[in-house]
């Protein structure tokens, strides 16, 4: 992984060799300044001040001053060059994060965008600055030492090399401590990120002490990691002492010998200036900058890359599913249901020239190799123009079925076909449109939103026609027409669903899959929207039902309930399927007619013997209504629990 990041980093720089060259070019000015730090001082002393020629001395210092100004200009340009590296990196990471977020629907991508990418940008720029600065300063100092007197280099060079060597060797263990610290820090943030939104539940459970203990473990672990990091930091101090401080002592110790071999007083002062004013600070920055920012950058980049590349398929699918289903996402079983498609298949055989709008053959789907299948050996055939409602308890796999038909997940075995075209496949993809429960509406014009599924802008007349059919027209007018910019947050969930439905209506795909796409609409609006889809000439409609009304309107119903899965018309299923009766029963006590539902003699309650524990159940209110006493034996009141 680390290798991957390093290699990519090198490639990134290689692709931008012009910028790197420019960066180097402007940095040379800094080398010049460093060079003159010692050289001008030495010359100024030897040829100027010590020789009594003040003018010469000042002239040399003037040259150094000029070099400072030139280098300052170089610094300005260096920032430009760093920008030309850091900004493309940021652009690239943003693109990656956004494309991953869009593809996987991962909410974590948002923090990736606003935080991790920014950390990567800043640390990368910092690293470039620090390492470049060290290289060019060191070159300036080394050249300066050599030109003052080669022997000076002999004294300063070895400890500098030793310090750098030690630093290089310790870089990796230091980076590991840094990574451990970052990991501990993140674990703590995750923990607190779970605890703070869960305070209500923790208090309710009385688990404050236990949770505090668990959090303390994370805090302690983070502290230990920070302590270890601090102790390992001593290695940096040693590198610095070796590379930057030892040369000072050595220069002094060797001074008599150096002076004997022709090193002038000015040169000695210059050499000391190189060590204390150039090498020591540059090494200090390198040792502290590379150690922390380097590993920070690698960790952040690894995170951004890993999430981008490893699209662990099952994980993604599972997440998609969990989000897709309102009631429940996962692992509901469905037993073999061979007879399910019998009727449809018969129709299919009657009209062989006209392939079915949708056919599923022995389709089995499970989330993992070991998991119990969600859909098990399902056969289903729908002729063009059919209107199917899919009902069943939440979590049973209704949305999974929709996803299978849409080709968003692939069955473990069996085939799905749309008009004879295999799913997934490009032909099949053009034949269907899926409207999930969570409507996608983005900040933009209404026309942009409605035309999302079309390659070219939709003519206004067609737009208005679709809006009229689905029931969006009043909202469209209220918003200010198709060209109005809309703010999704200002719309209600139902309004967003209307927009998504109209968009799907405009897509021209013959098969529409409404996966609880109308759950936030009221019953009348839902009926109107469903009718609009059902009435499209040749249009096939599959509705994962949110209300039982959807099943009543459909000409056939698939009841998914594991071993009790059944298929037929509303009336047939009322006779045949207990689950369906349950569902209808559960749905029916719509407040419009509770008495009827409660007294329905045909109703078979899913729960056997629902006798209410009613001896003397009374509730006394002391409120404005006065006292309402309700002591009675509920068992004798009957009907509520379904005992009739």
């Amino acid at each position: 992984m680390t290798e991957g990041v390093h290699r990519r980093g090198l490639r990134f720089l290689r692709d931008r060799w012009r910028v790197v060259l420019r960066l180097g070019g402007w940095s040379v000015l800094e080398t010049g300044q460093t060079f003159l730090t010692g050289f001008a001082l030495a010359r100024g002393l030897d040829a100027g001040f010590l020789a009594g020629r003040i003018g010469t001395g000042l002239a040399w210092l003037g040259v150094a001053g000029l070099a400072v100004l030139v280098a300052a200009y170089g610094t300005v340009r260096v920032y430009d060059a760093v920008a030309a590296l850091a900004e493309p990196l940021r652009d690239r990471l943003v693109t990656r994060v956004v494309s991953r977020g869009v593809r996987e629907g991962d909410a974590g991508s948002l923090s990736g965008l606003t935080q991790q990418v920014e950390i990567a940008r800043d640390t990368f720029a910092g690293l470039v600055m620090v390492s470049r600065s060290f290289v060019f300063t060191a070159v300036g100092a080394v050249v300066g030492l050599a030109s003052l007197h080669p022997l000076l280099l002999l004294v300063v060079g070895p400890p500098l090399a030793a310090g750098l060597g030690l630093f290089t060797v310790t870089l990796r263990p230091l980076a590991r401590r840094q990574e451990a610290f970052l990991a501990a820090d993140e674990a703590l943030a995750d923990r607190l990120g779970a605890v703070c939104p869960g305070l209500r539940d923790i208090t309710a459970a009385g688990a404050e002490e236990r949770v505090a203990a668990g959090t303390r473990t994370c805090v302690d672990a983070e502290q230990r990691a920070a302590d270890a990091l601090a102790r390992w930091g001593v290695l940096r101090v040693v590198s610095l002492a070796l590379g930057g401080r030892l040369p000072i002592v050595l220069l002094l110790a060797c001074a008599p010998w150096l002076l004997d071999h022709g090193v002038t007083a000015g040169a000695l002062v210059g050499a000391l200036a190189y060590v204390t004013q150039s090498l020591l600070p540059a090494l200090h920055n390198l040792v502290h900058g590379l150690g922390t920012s380097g590993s920070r950058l690698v960790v952040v980049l690894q995170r951004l890359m890993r999430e981008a590349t490893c699209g662990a398929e099952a994980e993604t699918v599972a997440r998609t599913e969990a989000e897709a289903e309102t009631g429940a996402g996962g692992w509901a079983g469905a037993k073999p249901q061979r007879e399910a498609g019998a009727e449809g298949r018969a129709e299919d055989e009657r009209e062989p020239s006209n392939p079915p709008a949708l056919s599923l053959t022995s389709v089995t789907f499970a989330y993992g190799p070991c998991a119990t299948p969600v859909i098990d050996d399902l056969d289903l055939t729908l002729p063009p123009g059919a209107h199917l409602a899919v009902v069943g308890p939440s979590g049973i796999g209704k949305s999974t079925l929709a996803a299978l038909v849409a080709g968003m997940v692939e069955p473990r075995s069996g085939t799905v076909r749309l008009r004879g075209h295999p799913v997934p496949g490009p032909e099949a993809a053009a034949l269907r449109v899926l409207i999930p429960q969570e409507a996608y509406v983005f900040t933009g014009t209404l026309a942009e939103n409605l035309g999302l599924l079309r390659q070219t802008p939709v003519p206004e007349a067609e737009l208005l026609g679709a809006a009229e059919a689905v029931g969006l027209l009043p909202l469209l007018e209220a918003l200010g027409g198709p060209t109005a910019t809309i703010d999704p947050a200002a719309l209600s969930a139902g309004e967003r669903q209307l927009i998504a439905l109209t968009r799907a209506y405009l897509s021209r795909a013959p098969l529409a899959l409404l996966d609880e796409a109308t759950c936030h609409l009221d019953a009348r609006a839902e009926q109107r929207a469903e009718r609009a889809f059902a009435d499209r000439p040749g249009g096939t409609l599959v509705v994962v039902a949110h209300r039982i009304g959807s099943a009543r309107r459909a000409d056939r119903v698939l009841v998914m309930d594991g071993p009790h899965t059944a298929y037929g018309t509303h009336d047939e299923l009322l006779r045949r399927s207990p689950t369906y009766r349950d569902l209808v029963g559960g749905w029916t006590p719509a407040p419009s007619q509770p008495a009827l539902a409660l007294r329905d003699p045909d109703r078979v309650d899913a729960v056997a013997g629902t006798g209410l524990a009613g001896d003397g159940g009374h509730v006394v209110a002391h409120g404005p209504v006065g006292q309402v006493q309700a002591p009675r034996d509920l068992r004798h009141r009957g009907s509520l629990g379904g005992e009739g």
Partner: protein
Amino acid sequence: MTEATRTLTGPLGPAPVRTLALCLVSTAATGAGLLLPAALGHTLDLLLTRAPATRWVLYCAGIVLLLALLDACETVLHGTLDARTTAWLRRRLTRHVLAVGPRAAARFGPGDLVARLVGNAAQAGTAPTGRAALLAALAGPVGGIVALALIDPWLAAVLLAGAPVLALLLRALARDTRDCVARYQKAQGRIAQALSEAVRGHRTIEAAGAADRETARILRPLPELSEAGHRMWRVQGRAAGRSVAVAPLLQLGVVAVAGVLLARHRLTVGEVLAASRYAVLATGVGVLVGQLAGLARARAATERLHEVLAEPAPGYGERGLPPGPGRLELRGVTARRGGRAVLDGVDLVVPGGTTLAVVGRSGAGKSLLAAVAGRLAEPDAGEVRLDGVPLRDLTHDALRRAVGHAFERPALLGGTVEEEIGLALSSPSPARVREASRTAHADDFVRRLPQGYATPVSAAPRSGGESQRLGLARAFAHGGRLLILDDALSSLDTVTEARITAALVNGGRHDGTRLLIAHRATTAARADAVAWLDGGRVRAVGRHEELWGIPEYRAVFAGEERA
């Protein structure tokens, strides 16, 4: 909490000895750093005059070694002290936040709380080291100038004359950047906004195969972001260009004056070397400025932590619960939120062992009633009693053991499924967890998870209904004589809901008192009685079918007929 109002830490922090040691070490290091140039200069002079200098070379070596040692000590002390203070703050705050409970999340928002506990605590944790290092940071520049003045007053004069220029130019840095930072953040915000919309709609995008197009659309502000970013670098570069020139120029000025004095034999070569070093130290004001800015940040962060600590934690009483059926009484309960009385003099009695459904339009105060009934929120007036004992007189353990809660959106804390269900004072047995899970109709889907009950909830894809069932299982495993379900069945399909309600109301699984906040008529119909809340008051209490005759009561359920 009296300790909450006290200062968070003294000036020396929770580890005063270490802080003092750090202060000592860093000041000593600065002192040694100030000593070194003088020693270097003197040694150099001795060497240049060929006088015996071994002792002075050794002195210099000693100072350099001392510097390295002090540096090492400082590194370790600095790092560990920061870690210690931060951890201390976090432990303290976590404890307090947990003691305050849901109020803390309501007051600050969970995200902000996390930010305070993570980010602000880390910043505030640097306060002791910042203070400890302040003396050293101050001693460096001041010592440098004093040393220059001691060598020759002219040298100090040159530096001091140039200092105002330095200060002006350093200030320019702070002024310029703000505007382009704002532009940058705006462009970034637009991308983030569009991305968050797309994340929510990713299923539509995926089904439509429109990922590329949507990515491109979301990235439309990217060039703008890039441009703002480039501008930021440019502004920073200009500021840096100015500031990097100032210090070396000041140093050169000092050296030039020193050179002239050298030529006039008023200074030695060694003193020129020392002067150039002291000039560097004297221009280290930037370090001091940075240190002060860091301290200011740490103080602001500490202030934000103080705000959290100032939020009082509810106290608990001394009493236990007598044996009883779980009779719940609310007497004149009034609770205000934002100046409005959400509950307005509510009187209710739920006899032990019965089920009361609370219904009402949204905003009628149902959830607050549920919270007050289980002491997750305090009433502003009135009293809640359980089996005759006011809730506030109960000990923490007695109260929490007696009352179980389930919520519309249970918060899962990131443990395994088993741990999540077993979240309570003391963890229930595995058998009890499974039994509760079965009652909540969660056992089925849990057993289909890759590792069953040992699956971490973060790895288990969950929908609202599944989370809700885990929350219900948690409440059932918790038990207690009063069970409060705050809309905890809303995401279940009607069949599952009916089964769970029936099991509950039947008393088979739970023999205590039940308080159900309900949206569905079917749930209300199964309860022994219904309390109809309207505008924070109890409008009526009675059986569902009795109340059904009132059109306004029926209107409460309008739009609730969906599955």
